[in-house]
C-alpha cells in the first residue's frame, strides 16, 4: 500500500501524455519478445541428423560426483514422434553431456556445440532432441552407461535438447 502511494506521488509530476508514452514503451519489448520467439526456430531443428520428441522414461541411478571430470550419462527415452531422420524402435538410449548442468550452460571447450532449454532431467518429462549416432563418432570422453548389461545397441548423442511438454 505504501509502495503504491509512493508511485502515485512520483507520477504526479508527470503529464498524462508522458505517463501514457511510458506505458506504451514498457509494453513494446514484451510484444517484440513474443514475435521474436515465434519467428526464430530453435536450433533443435537445425543441428544433428535425427530429431525426435520423446518421453524421458528413466534416469538410472544417481549422476556421478566427480569434480573436475566431464562425462556423458545415458538415459532411456520412449519416442513419441520422429521429425527428421530415423531411429530403430520406439525405445532409444541417449547420452547427455554433464547432465547436472542446464543444457544452456553445458557446452564447453571439449563439447562446444550442444545446448537447449532443458534445465534438469526428470523422468516423465517430454523433450524434443536433436541427435547424432553413434555417440563415439561425435564425443570422445567418459560415458556412464548403466544399461550396458541389457542393451548393446546404438547410443545416441544429444546435441540439442528442448523442453516439449
Amino acid at each position, binding site marked *: 500500500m505504501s509502495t503504491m502511494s509512493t508511485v502515485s506521488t512520483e507520477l504526479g509530476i508527470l503529464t498524462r501524455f508522458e505517463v501514457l508514452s511510458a506505458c506504451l514503451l514498457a509494453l513494446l519489448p514484451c510484444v517484440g519478445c513474443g514475435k521474436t520467439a515465434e519467428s526464430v526456430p530453435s536450433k533443435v531443428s537445425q543441428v544433428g541428423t535425427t530429431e525426435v520428441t520423446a518421453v524421458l522414461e528413466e534416469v538410472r541411478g544417481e549422476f556421478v560426483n566427480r569434480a573436475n571430470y566431464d562425462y556423458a550419462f545415458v538415459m532411456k527415452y520412449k519416442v513419441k514422434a520422429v521429425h527428421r531422420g530415423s531411429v530403430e524402435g520406439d525405445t532409444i538410449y541417449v547420452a547427455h553431456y554433464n547432465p547436472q548442468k542446464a543444457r544452456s550452460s553445458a557446452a564447453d571447450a571439449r563439447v562446444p556445440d550442444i545446448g537447449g532449454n532443458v534445465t534438469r532431467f526428470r523422468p516423465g518429462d517430454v523433450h524434443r532432441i536433436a541427435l547424432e549416432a553413434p555417440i563415439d563418432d561425435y564425443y*570422445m570422453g567418459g560415458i556412464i552407461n548403466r544399461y550396458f548389461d541389457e542393451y548393446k545397441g546404438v547410443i545416441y548423442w544429444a546435441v540439442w535438447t528442448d523442453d516439449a511438454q
Partner: protein
Amino acid sequence: MAVFLALSLLAPGAFAQPPASPDIDTLAKEVADKGGLVYGARSENGTWDLFLSRPDGSQRRNITNTPDAEEAAPRFSPNGTRLLYRRMKRGTEINHDKWGFQGELILAGGDGSNPVAFGGEGEYPWASWSPDGRQVVCLFPKGIKVYDLNSNSVTREFARQGIYQQLFWSPDGKWFCGVANNQGESWTVVRVDAASGEVNPARKYQNCTPDWHPDSNHIILSSRPAGQPGARGYGYTQLWMVSGDGAEQQLLYGEDGSHIYGGAFSPDGQYVIFTKGPKDGSGAEEAGAPICIIRTKDTPMITGESVELRKLHPATKSGPVLTLEKGWEPHWAYFLSGEKERRQRKTE
C-alpha cells in the same frame, strides 16, 4: 647423443637439492647418471616450458624457453633420441583431462633441439611413439590412426574401442593401452591387442595416466578406488600396477592426502617416477606437483600417516622417496652414446 652431451657438461649432482636423509641421498646418487628426465614446468618467463634434468634433479635446464607458448606432455622416443610434446599459445590452460587435444604436436631432438610442428592446432591428437620411433599413434573420435613420420601417411587405422584419452603403444609393439569407456563404466584402463583389435579391461573405475612397464605385460596407472572416506568420500588417487589382462592388481604407492599422477617406470623398470600433489588433477592447471622417484623393489609403499590406506594394505615396504622440482607428466630415458647410438640410428 645431443642429450647425452648436454647433460654431460655438468657433473651429476651439480644442482641437486640437498638430500633430506641418508637414504634419499643414496637413492639420488644411485639414479644420478641413469639417463635423464624431461617434464613440463612453470618457468621464469611465466609459461609452461620443458625441462631436462638428471634423475636426481641435477643439471636442470630449460630446453624450450618460449615466452609465447606453453609446452607440455613431453615423451622421449623409445631410444631417447627424440621428443614429442604439445605446444599451445601462451595463456592456454593445460587441461589435465584434455591435453592431448590441445595445441600442436611438436617433434624435436631428445635435447629439445630443432623443434618442428607436425601438423596444426588440434591435429594428431594424443600422439604417442611407436616402439621403433618411426611412427606415432593418434586417437580420433572415429578411430585410431598410425602415421609414418617420414611420409606423414596413415599406415593403419582401426576402431578406438571406447578409448578416449592417453593412448600408449607397448614396447614390444603387441599392445596398446588407454583410458576408455568399457562395459558401461568410464575411466577404465584397457589393453588392446594390436593384431586383433580385441580389448580387455585392465582396471575398472576411476583410473587414468596409464603407461607400460618395460616388460610390456604390466601397466602403471593412477587409480582412485571407491569407498575411501578421505576428502569427504572423494578419496585420494594412488599409483597402481596391473597386468595387461587385469588379473594382477597391485598398489605401488599412495599417501592419504595426496593425489599421485603421471606414473612411469625408468627404462629398466627399476624405478618409478610420478607427481604427488594435494589437489586432484596433478596440478596441470596451476604449476604441477613435486616429481618423485622411488625404487620399484620398495613397493608397495605408503607414506605419511595414511591410517585408512594402511588398513587396506597392511603389508607394505618402506624406502626413500626422492622429491624433485614441481612438474607435470615426467618421462625418463636412458640415453645411448657413442657407437651404440650410431648403430641404433642406422637401424631406424
